């Protein structure tokens, strides 16, 4: 059976992370599973979890008043879900719903924040892995906003 540590070590997000830091991170980790249609978190709820997606697919949704929910992004195998646990006021900005059976490792956000506070090198390691993802997400969002497939007049 694979240990949490080996699963995390094989996840792209933690690739080549030093063993000592991997051990620290694993101390905040546990396995989770979400059935299709199950909400993982809701907008404005406290963000105290950081999900490492092992397999499956999760939709990030916004629900405008009186309208159907709109999916703005999906994340799946090998990706991560959420960084609100790192940024005050630690509240989720979107609903997250499993589109299909999803297996993930959840890291306790508070635990991780404390460890990053105690060891800034670990904090730097995690941030330098998160920032490119945040940057790519922002770039993707801009492209979506451009509506490039719409009729250009």
């Amino acid at each position: 059976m694979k240990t949490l540590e080996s699963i995390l070590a094989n996840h792209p997000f933690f690739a080549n992370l030093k063993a000592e830091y991997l051990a620290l991170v694993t101390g905040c980790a546990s396995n989770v599973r979400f059935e299709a249609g199950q909400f993982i978190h809701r907008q404005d709820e406290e963000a105290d979890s950081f999900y490492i997606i092992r397999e499956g697919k999760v939709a990030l949704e916004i629900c405008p008043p009186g309208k159907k929910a709109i999916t703005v992004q999906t994340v799946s195998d090998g990706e991560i879900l959420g960084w609100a646990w790192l940024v005050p006021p630690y509240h989720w900005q979107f609903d997250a719903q499993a589109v299909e059976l999803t297996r993930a490792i959840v890291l306790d956000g508070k635990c991780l924040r404390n460890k990053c506070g105690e060891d800034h090198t670990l904090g730097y390691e995690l941030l330098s892995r998160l920032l490119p993802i945040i940057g790519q997400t922002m770039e993707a969002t801009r492209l979506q906003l451009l509506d490039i497939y719409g009729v250009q007049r």
Partner: protein
Amino acid sequence: MAGQMQPPGVNPMIPQTYRVNKFIRETHDTFSLDVVPKGGTEPMFFQPGQFNMLYAFGVGEVPISISGPKPGTQGMIHTIRDVGVVTRALHHLKKGQTLGLRGPFGSSWPIEESKGQDVVIMAGGIGLAPLRPALYALLEQRDQYGEIVLLYGVRNPEDLLFTKEFETWRGKYGVQVKLTVDTADREWRGNVGVVNTLIQRVTFDPLNTVAMICGPEVMMRFAVSELKRYGVPEQQLYVTLERNLKCAVGFCGHCQFGPAFICKDGAVFRYDKVKPFFGIREI
């Protein structure tokens, strides 16, 4: 890659009369016309990636990429989005009605050059249309290529083209087909996000990969950048460019793009050949 012009003796400026053999509704604003020469039975030759000038009589002429048919079948299919006066007139054509056609014109996708390599096809919106003949050509000689990947992004699920063919491409030919949309509601079970994000979800050998990209220019810029980040060399990236195509044979100069004319040197270009001009606003 070299452009294949009309047969010798045919004035490329004079449209030939074609008949609509079949009208195919693709999405709410996109349709395909399968056309055959009026009264003619000769087979029509084109290279994947080439385009024709379609003339709606009395209205005007527009450049339209050839999107089919499957190898070994007659006719030429053009997939058209109803966005202007001429395309609207073409939209109203019915089976048996006629239109003018000049072509085929332009360069083609590097089908032969890609043999022995993985092929990544990235399409955005109606950009899948000119890539479909390339996919047909690759699949016709499936064993000559390594991984074949199709990454396709559209605005929303209703805009996906050729959806009935995805399962065949996946199941029969082992194509890695990944679709994504910019936004969707909960009925959609697939990916949501820009097409570039799909690259991480497929397997191919970047150094031994040819990428063929077609879509809005902004999308192609980001696609090129992402493929380069994964290690695909610039000389193995191919893009298509769109400008104001008028004569289609390099006479009028409307489609000049730096030192090239898109109508006769393109519309398919190897990326490193057009890179210096790719991001210049004024071009």
